[in-house]
């Protein structure tokens, strides 16, 4: 039809497989914008995504590019392994907060430390979704999970880790930003952040990490909309959005 313009449709960066996420989980939103950016940068054909262990483990079925599934927490190491032998490829890992902030923090830090030219998509939903809602390093104080049944207690379980802030101190890292997908405006902002990160990678400028504030309606025990609101009210105050490191700055001007 000539008098109709498609302003939004499912990205070609995604396959047609039915996504296994729970209804209303923002993992799906993040998948979409990653896929869109890969298509818009015209790199899908040379991209290898790394699925990590978490709810997103099956996304090797969802992203419409070469994929490798990595052991829990080790996606940045797998990414390093690939990128070093296939430097022309575009590599991203997609990791949850259990995967990256807990078991895999060493691999994430050292990929940044070596300045690996890869992009980490880090999905912080303050919980272990896949395994049924255990406490994550990013679980907020007072938040109830199956392993903090009385709410996370600073005394015995510590204060939540701020990954973007921590990773930003690593000299080898190029770009670190924290974004959220709680409304269309922020989805667009988040996509811009991804665009920046993948562009940096495309230009061989080094390590990039985008942290996403995300939801887990099922394990938080909320409707998807309430979950998004909870994230805005509770997570963003502790995990402020913004650019935490941008080593391309001076150079670009």
């Amino acid at each position, binding site marked *: 039809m000539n008098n109709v313009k498609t302003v939004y449709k499912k990205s070609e960066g995604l396959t047609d497989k039915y996504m*296994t996420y*729970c*209804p209303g989980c923002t993992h799906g939103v993040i998948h979409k914008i990653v896929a869109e950016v890969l298509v818009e940068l015209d790199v899908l054909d040379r991209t290898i995504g790394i699925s990590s262990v978490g*709810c997103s483990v099956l996304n090797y079925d969802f992203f419409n590019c070469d994929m490798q599934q990595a052991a829990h927490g080790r996606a940045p190491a797998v990414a390093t392994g690939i990128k070093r032998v296939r430097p022309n490829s575009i590599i991203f890992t997609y990791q949850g907060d259990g995967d990256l902030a807990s078991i895999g923090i060493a691999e994430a830090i050292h990929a940044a430390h070596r300045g690996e030219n890869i992009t980490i998509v880090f999905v912080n939903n303050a919980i272990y979704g*896949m395994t049924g809602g255990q406490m994550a390093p990013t679980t907020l104080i007072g938040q109830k999970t199956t392993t903090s049944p009385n709410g996370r207690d600073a005394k015995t379980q510590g204060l939540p880790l701020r990954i973007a802030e921590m990773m930003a101190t690593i000299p080898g890292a190029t770009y670190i930003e924290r974004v959220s997908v709680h409304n269309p405006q922020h989805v667009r902002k988040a996509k811009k952040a991804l665009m920046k990160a993948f562009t940096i990678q495309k230009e061989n400028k080094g390590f990039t990490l985008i942290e996403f504030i995300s939801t887990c309606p*099922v394990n938080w025990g909320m409707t998807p909309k309430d979950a998004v609101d909870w994230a805005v009210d509770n997570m963003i105050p502790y995990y402020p959005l913004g650019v935490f490191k941008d080593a391309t700055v001076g150079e670009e001007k």
Partner: protein
Amino acid sequence: MISEKVIIAGFGGQGVMLMGQLLSYTATAKELNTLWFPSYGPETRGGTANCSVTISETDVNSPVISTPDSIIIMNKPSLDKFQPKLRKDGHLFLNTSLVKDVKLRNDLNIYKIPANDIAMELGNLKVANMVMLGAYLEVTKVFDPESVLEVLKKKFTGSKATLIEINKKALEAGKQAVL
């Protein structure tokens, strides 16, 4: 001698796990042997959930029920999965509110219960499972509903205690549905 092997299956959220557990709790209270085994893991997310319950006066050996005596079916995919396994002359309890227009074997005892509709009438869709259980108990006579209710009372304490009444009604309604 009680010896019953039942599989209960439906969508996640329909309370199939609880149904099975109630049977096993009741069996335990009666000092019978019993075993409850659920489907588990992310496969259950959004998809189907089921559990197997064995109740016996002798030891329960195999935890897996290859040939159930009864199946309680809360949705369509579950029927496809478990109908073939049901033993000849076994009891099939069907939630006909959700399972319609399906092919049924003709060597079974089939009980059609519009559980969702009944539950709605009772005022809480969530008790559809108890409706099915009421029907199941009435047919199989494994336990009387009172024993199950006894267990329910022990489990539902505090704020949940208010739910006992409607569950009782649901059990009764299920019973009526197959009388």
